[in-house]
């Protein structure tokens, strides 16, 4: 199978007032088509920065210093901004830990999903509306019409995350990047969202890059797992292999924490 995404020797630096901090120093990662890759590590290990680098949506004081990111045969790091805009949200989309802080509070859920459809697929309002209701059904929101007209603050955390997933899948992306999407949710809701993501992956056929500090999620969904520590990818292995014979000490730490309090 071909690699959909290939990150090689990625290095990212942050420029603070009078110092430079290296957030990512030599990250290597690849994802095949239709594959679920989990990127695991503690907070501050560079997972999120690596993920944001793919679409070059880093904070303003961060810069990619070196490396290459190849997505579907194109070099993302040298792509012009107007080309990138066409990829963001269409071929690659993101979901985050707190959907509420990424949803616009003054637009209804429906309007925000429609925006993605109209922007990337050039459909008229009526077509976009129907497609939005369809999408909400796909993420198992049965009261589509009510949710369409709701504002983010009127919905629960789990409901907002479903709506956010609907929005990110609106343009049938090839790659979905999920950055701790279940961390702020209850365990029962977390289990539902994970199940939903795996179902959608099967029917819509996309690759999934899932970021988490909790190996119990990796155990459930991953094909392969990459472990990050202090800005570097320190280990890469298939799911069974990683749990059976971890090599790096940080992987062992993560597995140890998982075995004690990550599962019953």
């Amino acid at each position, binding site marked *: 199978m071909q690699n959909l995404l290939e990150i090689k020797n990625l290095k990212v630096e942050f420029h603070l007032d009078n110092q430079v901090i290296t957030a990512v120093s030599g990250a290597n990662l690849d994802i095949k088509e239709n594959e679920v890759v989990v990127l695991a590590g*503690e*907070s*501050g290990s560079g997972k999120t920065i690596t993920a944001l680098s793919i679409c070059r949506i880093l904070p303003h004081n961060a810069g990619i210093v070196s490396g290459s990111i190849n997505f579907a045969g194109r070099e993302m790091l040298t792509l012009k901004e107007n080309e990138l805009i066409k990829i963001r949200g269409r071929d690659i989309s993101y979901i985050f830990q707190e959907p509420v802080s990424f949803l616009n509070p003054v637009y209804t859920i429906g309007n925000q999903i429609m925006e993605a459809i109209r922007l990337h697929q050039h459909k008229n309002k009526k077509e976009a509306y129907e497609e939005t209701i369809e999408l909400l059904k796909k993420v198992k929101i049965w009261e589509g019409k009510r949710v369409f007209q709701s504002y983010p603050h009127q919905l629960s*955390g789990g409901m907002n995350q479903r709506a956010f997933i609907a929005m990110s899948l609106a343009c049938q992306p090839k790659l979905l990047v999920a950055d701790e999407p279940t961390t702020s949710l*209850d*365990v*029962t*809701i*977390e*289990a539902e969202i994970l199940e939903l993501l795996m179902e959608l992956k099967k029917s819509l056929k996309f690759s999934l890059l899932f970021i988490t*500090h*909790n*190996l119990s999620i990796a155990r459930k969904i991953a094909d392969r797992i990459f472990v990050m520590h202090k800005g570097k990818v320190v280990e890469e292995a298939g799911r069974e292999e990683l749990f059976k014979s971890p090599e790096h000490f940080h992987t062992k*730490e*993560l597995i*140890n*924490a*998982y075995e*004690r*309090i*990550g*599962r*019953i």
Partner: protein
Amino acid sequence: MILNVIKLSKYFPIEQGLFRAETGLIRALDEVSFSVDEFSTLGIVGESGSGKTTLAKIILNLIPPTTGEFFFNEDFIGNFRKDVQIIFQNPYNSLNPKMRIFDIIAEPMIIHRIAAKKHLKAEVPELLETVGLDGDVLKRYPHEFSGGQRQRICIARALASKPKFIVLDEPISSLDLTIQAKLLDLFIELKQKFNLTYIFISHNLAVIKYISDTVIVMQNGRIVERGKVYDIFNRPSEQYTKKLLESAM
């Protein structure tokens, strides 16, 4: 028995419209009864909105109950504010950003006359050491620390008044799993060292299983199941408990 809770309820009114007319009641807690034995850990587990935190606030005398009562055993709890402490979920907004670590830890010691002022210089670093922090943190401010370190500071502050009973309200939920495991070990170690009694609130069943002696499962303000930790995890009788356990497998 150190704490006895009898039919505790808390209702919050739903107010609507211009004149804030009461249109209904939210039953945040609905006739909750339980007791806690000394030197044990009671785990309270439930999803968000199940009433866990409301229960903690009432026990700590931070909000009054609507009906019901609770008693602390006076043989153990003499001075309530000294003997009963709390550790909150979010270590980022439970430390005063303008105070240095030394003053944060020293304040309860001074107020409750735990240590004379001249002894503080020795007592504060010693306490910080018991929670795994070096003495060189004394002059620093909370923002200079990571989430895990801040929670250690909160633990030291809670221990500063030499309490007997600590309510831990989701004390590790906002931290990485590896840090969570380390802090759990610290809680267990401190409990033995200082003969503490805990109420440990969490939505994470694995954490509850790890630390508790007895467990209460809450849903919509009610206790749906209670028992010894082994029984709850090995032969749950309620549908809701089974569902929670399944999600955490």
